[in-house]
């Protein structure tokens, strides 16, 4: 038996387990690329308009930091400009999640031990996870190529290679990270940090001279230059990077025991602190890490969007159709305010995703059997559920306040009126809250009344975000847009605050949440 015996069987097992997860990643990303290309075809249909985009980008460092430089002003080139940075990062994220899921997560759950006792080589589980991660990345590349064939074969192939290369690069990163720590969560954290650093390095590089860009796999993706006189040799960088890290990961796995890790696990306190004495204290303890992570993300996101406000308005100003879209999203007062209002709305929709995952922590606790011992103490169900729900509701207040504040800071730095912008945009952020709460309350109602359907609240939150982001550009009919609760909010700061919709949504959210808690009191708790 050699060290790779069983890789084929384990790969088939991994693909069987991921038969929903992989398509759920690659198909939407490919569709996003396809729809961006077709939207650009409609939005910038003259060479002058497209040249305008390139000029705005060339003159605006923060735009380049966000999207990268424009290498070509054709539809394909603009699609590459808009999609490459985020799309390749998404490909990397997918690969990280897949590889950690089939390596450290299996090991931590004890399933790898069961598998490893069979006729399976020492390196086979890692190899199977990598084959799965690489395979999903290549599939994504293939779909993206197919989606863009209409823009030219060479460019479409280069585009696919860029996505696949980014995916494979971070699959290899995750393979190493999975050897470093005992917990899958920490392995995902390390890999995610590397991904974030790669994005940041590329952003700083693209905003400046471009040298730093070459230190980041995400920078290589953009520098293959699809649809702009492709530079095929850049693909070799992905291969060298992935091969190097895969070698390291295999060397590490061959040297360590099962369940062991290079970084020693840290012990915890022998006794609980003063705050860990109530159901609310437990909910806080379980969710605080996630809330801090989201807060940091919202702070950075708000600052970046605020800093981009002027540049974005420049991009739109010369294009009547794009300006229409922007006004649909963010109201009609002025382009910058429309932009700020629409971005604040997007932050609200993302906060709704946070709120859904905070509420659904309840379901995770119940299904894993961790709720049972807690509910067998003097804690009632409502108090237990309210502990997590409070984090969803109050946590979204924190997120919206922080992102409004940093958006004001970012935009204020370009206008000079920092204090005023901070006040205005923090207020605009808080105006989103009734809609965020409404989505959270839907999740709570589903969890309480129909726990098997509770995961559908992810669908509600993602569809809300998708309608908000793409509905105006796709010219969806008003009744479809009305299905999103965010459509009913006043478009602050572009429009004035109107109290009625906010009050109605808040009351509805509270009523749904109360119904959810009441339903939870009546049903069986299952494990």
């Amino acid at each position: 038996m050699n060290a790779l015996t069983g890789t084929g069987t384990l790969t088939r097992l991994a693909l069987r387990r991921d038969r929903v997860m992989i398509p759920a990643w690659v198909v939407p990303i490919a569709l996003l690329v396809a729809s961006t290309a077709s939207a650009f075809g409609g939005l910038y249909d003259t060479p002058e308009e497209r040249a305008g985009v390139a000029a705005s980008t060339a003159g605006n460092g923060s735009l380049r930091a966000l999207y990268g430089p424009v290498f070509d002003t054709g539809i394909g080139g603009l699609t590459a400009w808009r999609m490459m940075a985020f799309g390749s990062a998404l490909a990397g994220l997918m690969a990280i999640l897949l590889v950690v899921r089939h390596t450290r997560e299996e090991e931590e759950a004890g399933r790898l031990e069961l598998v490893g006792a069979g006729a399976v080589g020492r390196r086979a589980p890692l190899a199977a996870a990598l084959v799965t991660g690489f395979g999903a990345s290549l599939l994504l590349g293939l779909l993206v190529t197919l989606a863009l064939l209409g823009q030219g074969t060479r460019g479409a192939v280069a585009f696919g290679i860029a996505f696949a290369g980014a995916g494979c690069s971070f699959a290899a990163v995750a393979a190493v990270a999975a050897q470093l720590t005992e917990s899958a969560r920490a392995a995902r954290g390390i890999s995610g940090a590397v991904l974030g650093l790669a994005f940041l390095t590329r952003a700083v590089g693209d905003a400046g001279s471009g040298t730093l860009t070459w230190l980041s796999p995400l920078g290589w993706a953009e520098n293959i230059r699809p649809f702009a006189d492709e530079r095929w040799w850049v693909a070799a960088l992905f291969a060298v990077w992935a091969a190097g890290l895969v070698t390291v990961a295999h060397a590490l796995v061959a040297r360590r025991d099962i369940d062991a890790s290079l970084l020693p696990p840290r012990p915890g306190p022998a006794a609980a602190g003063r705050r860990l004495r109530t159901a609310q204290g437990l909910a806080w303890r379980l969710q605080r890490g996630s809330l801090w992570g989201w807060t940091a993300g919202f702070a950075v996101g708000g600052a970046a969007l605020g800093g981009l406000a002027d540049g974005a308005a420049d991009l739109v100003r010369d294009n009547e159709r794009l300006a229409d879209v922007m006004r649909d999203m963010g109201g009609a007062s002025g382009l910058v305010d429309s932009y700020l209002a629409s971005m604040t709305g997007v932050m609200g929709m993302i906060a709704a995703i946070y709120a859904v995952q905070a509420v659904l922590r309840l379901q995770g606790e119940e299904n894993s059997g961790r709720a049972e011992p807690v509910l067998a103490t003097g804690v009632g169900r409502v108090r237990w559920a309210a502990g997590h729900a409070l984090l969803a509701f109050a946590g979204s207040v924190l997120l919206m306040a922080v992102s409004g504040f940093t958006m004001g800071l970012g935009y204020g730095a370009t206008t000079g009126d920092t204090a005023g912008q901070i006040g205005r945009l923090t207020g605009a952020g808080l105006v989103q809250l009734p809609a965020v709460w409404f989505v959270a309350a839907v999740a709570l109602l589903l969890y309480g009344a129909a726990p098997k359907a509770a995961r559908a609240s992810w669908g509600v939150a993602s569809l809300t975000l998708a309608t908000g982001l793409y509905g105006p550009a796709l010219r969806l009919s008003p009744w479809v847009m009305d299905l999103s609760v965010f459509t009913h909010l006043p478009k602050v700061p572009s429009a004035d605050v109107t109290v009625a919709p906010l009050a109605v949504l808040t009351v509805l959210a509270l009523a749904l949440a109360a119904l959810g808690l009441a339903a939870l009191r009546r049903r069986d708790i299952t494990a």
Partner: protein
Amino acid sequence: MTKAISVAGLHKSFGRTHALDGLDLAVEEGEVHGFLGPNGAGKSTTIRILLGLLRADRGAAVLLGGDPWRDAVTLHRRLAYVPGDVTLWRNLSGGEAIDLLGRLRGGLDEARRRQLLERFELDPTKKGRAYSKGNRQKVALVAAFASDVDLLILDEPTSGLDPLMEEVFRECVREERDRGRTVLLSSHILGEVEALCDRVSIIRGGRTVETGSLGELRHLTRTSVTAELAGRADGLGGLPGVHDLEVRGDHVRLQVDTDKLDAVLRRLGETGVRSLTSTPPTLEELFLRHYENGPDGPDGPADPAAPAVATGALAADAEARR
């Protein structure tokens, strides 16, 4: 004596599965009550109903004088529960989980916590994800035994413990009984049940098939005897209470009702004994008889293949309640 738990005619279905089909259970205050049955018999479902996590479809359940569904929170302050499959929070240390569960019940005895950690040899600084199954159970056991409660509900609490720790667990249960606490112990480990329980209920297919004191149940069991004799033993088969007699030359193997053991030993002694192995009476046989019958098979001791066993008042009791 008052009842700590009294359950009558409990029914619970999950979709088309009937988990409980008229279950009865009576646990006296201050006793250790064994709760036995094959996998899927409905032990955990019963316990979850007693904890107010599930709502019974029909039947009556009274726990510490209250309604387990309606008065769940008040009752829970007076009981401690150890699930069979303990899952802990991955990033909470064992010590934190113990303190949290204790505090949520209304506080725990610091001195006893310290002492229990020592006796169970549990490292409270490890994170939840790093504990083995046995150590996760120890976390839940320490939290339960260190709480000041009237009732302990333990659902197969020792399935991951090694024999040394099993002994510590038994000591702890005895201490709880000595303090006048009631224990409901669901278990598969017959030695544990024999060592700890005052009374036992055996359930199968969601119904109670046998209940009584250990003495009463032991009466229904047999001792197996293997002996090498100095000569041929005659007349063993004619003795009362002897079953499954096998004679191969000087070697004898038989089973005997425990209360008839004396006569058998005397007869063997008359022949002359070279070696003798006697397996002490266990409940195993009785349990196996109940466990092995298919879920739709006859209840109670009606297995025709088994030699007649004195069913006594117990089975009649069970019969009457059905």
